[in-house]
């Protein structure tokens, strides 16, 4: 791993850090991995693949109706038009938030998440409290994120625990009619594409 972080070196490693180091050593000794390959994977997801990719997909869908139609009918192909494809995005589904419907994505099994468009999942997405609560009390979860929806809004939870990966197409906020596609991409948040955020009017 690159050594440019700032943890104090006199602290013992956590259990997770020790386990990761032990696994990496064993896999390296058995010649299943070259540690440099692991560094490259980490670097790729730290610097190249993240939620800005998904934001570009969303901004294009907001400004190009034909693209939006393709995105909702064959998400994998439409997303790959923008160059985003690969691990954990092989089979994508995009669900659209509207005035009447709000979608939220979860994986109750573990942490399934659309990597090419959103990068690696945030810690809370992988944590048991989110996974257990959002399928039962989504309005309570939204409240924790500071989001309140009218009672009339239909809520759809997508448990992505098989092989499909889900991306939410957030509702385009009011007051953004004059914004360009690039400007729109700037205002799309990661959480809005998971469904735990609603984008504020501008």
């Amino acid at each position: 791993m690159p050594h440019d972080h700032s943890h104090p070196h006199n602290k013992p490693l956590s259990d997770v850090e020790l386990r990761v180091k032990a696994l990496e050593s064993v896999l390296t000794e058995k010649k299943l991995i070259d540690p440099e390959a692991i560094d490259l994977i980490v670097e790729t997801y730290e610097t190249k693949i993240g939620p800005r990719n998904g934001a570009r997909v969303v901004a294009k869908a907001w400004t190009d109706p034909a693209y939006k139609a393709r995105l909702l009918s064959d998400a994998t192909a439409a997303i790959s038009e923008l160059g985003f494809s690969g691990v954990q995005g092989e089979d994508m589904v995009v669900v659209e938030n509207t005035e009447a419907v709000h979608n939220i994505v979860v994986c109750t099994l573990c942490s399934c998440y659309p990597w090419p468009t959103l990068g690696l999942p945030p810690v809370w997405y992988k944590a048991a409290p989110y996974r257990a609560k959002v399928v039962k009390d989504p309005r309570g979860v939204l409240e924790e994120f500071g989001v309140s929806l009218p009672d009339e809004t239909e809520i759809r939870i997508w448990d992505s625990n098989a092989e499909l990966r889900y991306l939410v197409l957030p509702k385009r906020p009011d007051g953004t009619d004059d914004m360009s596609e690039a400007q729109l991409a700037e205002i799309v948040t990661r959480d809005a594409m998971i469904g735990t955020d609603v984008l504020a009017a501008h």
Partner: protein
Amino acid sequence: MPTLTPDIVPGLIATGASARLDEDVAAKFSVGDAVEMKNINPVTHTRLPRYVRGKKGVVERDHGVFAFPDTGAHGLGHKAQHVYSVKFSFRELWGEDHAENMYLYIDMFDDYMKPAL
């Protein structure tokens, strides 16, 4: 097994490995079918969570043919079958005190489902 080296990482990340299979397997269910998840309790790997076992839903979309993780995870083969998006109401899953306009969608394999009576 070949060593994971830096030169194959970019291609690996960009391509991934879909669990979708190009096999001609008949679908056991159609969009609109009322289905019931089997009440089974495997002690091995499964993608059938407890909270939908024994619950009734409706097939919303047929995603096509995929490898079955319940067998694949244990080296027992792909057992290619259809995966469907199945819609459940919160009232069915969690009880009648839940709002009517709340739904849960989950992707279910043929082997998990039977026709709802």
